[in-house]
């Protein structure tokens, strides 16, 4: 479910800017790091930290938009791609310099214990991830499909030039999308950071999984990204239980190559087609 938040943030940024945001994985790590720092400073419980982390990372998203995406709006997508790669390296290095390379533990959302529901013991943190994730997914769906702001965000994603021509302030919407994308990344980083620790170099891994999820689900499709992310999560859980982590990752990459060989446009195809 945390993968789903990473992938959804990724696809929002992708749609808004029309380019892969390579720094997205590092925003996830940054979310974990901010949670670690805020917990140390303020000593607040996890569920109160969540909005603060989301806000901080929304700010980081806005910054990313103004540094690496908006100035390159008229250039080919590779330009933004490389710019965000540079941004990713900058975030990673800044974190390494300030925090050190050693892993840190982010605070838990509710607590690190377990509850027993209907006889099944469930960790509080995984439970929190699923619940927070589900709430955010529904909220995002509502925003995109049922509100004018969401409709206009999708219009910007479909055709920026035309969006301006019907009076949509495109720069503001791109910034908003990146802020949302950053907030989702931050929340995901915070939630993952308790179980899987926070290390500056994790960014590329998060980014790769989001990339896979979005490509498998159909480029730019929000529900596709969600399904793709859940599929990756399930795949990893079951396969790594069977053959160990390293080979599970290998199996994932082989699976990706296989899927792309058989379905060159992802499992569910491209939602935005061109006619004539």
């Amino acid at each position, binding site marked *: 479910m945390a993968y789903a938040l990473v992938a959804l943030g990724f696809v929002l940024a992708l749609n808004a800017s029309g380019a892969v945001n390579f720094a997205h994985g590092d925003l996830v790590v940054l979310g974990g790091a901010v949670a670690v720092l805020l917990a140390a400073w303020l000593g607040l419980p996890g569920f109160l930290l969540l909005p603060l982390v989301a806000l901080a990372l929304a700010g980081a998203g806005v910054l990313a938009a103004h540094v690496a995406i908006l100035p390159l709006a008229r250039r080919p997508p590779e330009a933004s791609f490389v710019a965000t790669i*540079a941004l990713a390296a*900058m975030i*990673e*290095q800044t974190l390494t310099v300030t925090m050190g390379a050693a892993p840190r533990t982010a605070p838990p959302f509710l607590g690190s214990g377990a509850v027993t529901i209907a006889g099944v013991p469930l960790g509080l943190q995984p439970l929190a991830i699923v619940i927070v994730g589900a709430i955010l997914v529904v909220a995002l769906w509502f925003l995109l499909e049922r509100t004018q702001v969401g409709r206009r965000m999708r219009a910007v994603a479909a055709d920026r030039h035309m969006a301006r021509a019907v009076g949509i302030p495109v720069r503001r919407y791109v910034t908003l999308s990146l802020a949302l994308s950053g907030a989702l990344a931050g929340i995901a980083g915070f939630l993952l950071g308790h179980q899987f620790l926070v290390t500056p170099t994790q960014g590329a891994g998060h980014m790769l999984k989001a*990339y896979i999820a979005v490509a498998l689900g159909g480029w730019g499709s929000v529900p596709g990204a969600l399904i793709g992310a859940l599929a990756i999560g399930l795949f990893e859980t079951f396969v790594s239980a069977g053959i160990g982590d390293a080979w599970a990752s290998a199996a994932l990459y082989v699976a*990706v*190559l296989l899927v*792309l060989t058989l379905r060159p446009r992802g499992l569910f195809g491209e939602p935005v087609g061109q006619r004539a």
Partner: protein
Amino acid sequence: MAERLATLVGIYALLGLGYQIVFGQLRALNLAQGALFGVGAYATALTAPYLGPLALLVAPFVAAAAAALAAPPMLRLQSHYFALATLAFASLINLVAVNAEDLTGGANGLVGFGMSLPRGTILAVAVWLVVAAAVIAYSWVFAGAMGEKARLLRDAPLVAASVGIDAALWRFLAFVAGGACAGLAGGFSAALTGVVSPEVTGFPVMLLCLTAVVVGGTRHPLGAVLGAAVAVLLPELFRGLQGSWLLAYAAATLAVVLWAPEGLAGLFMRRRALPIPLAATPVSGGRRLALDHVSKRFGGVEALSDVSLTVDRGEIVGLIGPNGSGKTTLLNAIGGLEPADFGTITIDSMHLERLPAHAIARHGIGRTFQTPIEGETRGAGLARALATGAAFLLLDEPAAGMTDRERELLAGQLRGLRRDRGILLVDHDVELLTRVCDRLVCLDGGKVIATGSPLQVRADPRVRASFLGVPA
């Protein structure tokens, strides 16, 4: 120290040059170049104890073989999917390097092979000789018609197919050639450091390569050299910053992307690319293009239904029909861009319906498109179709966007071309078609509803109702 840096610059220049072929020329975002560099390094390290300096020559072949092996499933993929597939391929190589301990020494890597390889000045000279040769070869290959073909592939892949360029073959060759460069660079780097560990297959190498090429310039061969120099020398300059040199390097890359989009090479080198026309071959080949019972569905929609028609050399056949009646789809089916589901398409007795687009183009079918390539005039599309020596021309609304006078000129041009060619002409301007065409075919809902002389077809009540907006 200086010698070592110079060697390192040469190694990254070679890596970058290989990358330019794929990324710069074909605009394919290949993320496996770093991993192929690592493959070359391992190949050299593993064979050096047996082969001595010859192990360096093994590297490009092993890397090229790895690339060739992985390429077929990836070549069909479009931009982002290609990037992802190459990234997955690279991650696989990295996992093998870390986990196949018997072969690669696992995380500890391989050491002790360096004695059998050239070092010092000899290595530096060898690296730079190779770089110089590669720069010259690259410039030579992409200077003329090859460069023009690469531009078409980059900017207008459909047009490239319509003039007979085999995109899959190009991508395959570029990917393998780029991989060979990466492999050789990797071999040299193994000789330079004397150690090979899984890091050489890792993503940071790829990042270094990508940023170096972007900083230097993605197509000009000296861009790779400049980029490599910056990538290697900048860390030396920022040595005082200790671990944060990467931060400074990333910031510098960002600055170049923002303010010098053509890369450093673009700052002081003018692009001299003047498109050189593609070689024209004489018109030869079959006499009659024939479609027999051609059908095509998109999802549930019958785009073409049982279409039969012929075009002979020496005649112009006009194709009319309301919007969405299947005119462009029919041209795409003949040209192989959207192959028909049923029916046959032949030139004399040669079957075309199962051939890929570029092969159909080579059998003498030229094509123009509704939208011209950015920066080109409409005439360029027709000129390109003619330059292939096509016996049959498929023209999709060549008169759209023309003034009445330009239409007149076009009509004259078409009559001239008819002498030794067959032309299938789609347009909405019925007056123009009536003047230049020998026959008209009217499509509606994917079906042929009328065929005959222009006056006959225009008088047909069903045609009038569907197309001319006149009540039947």
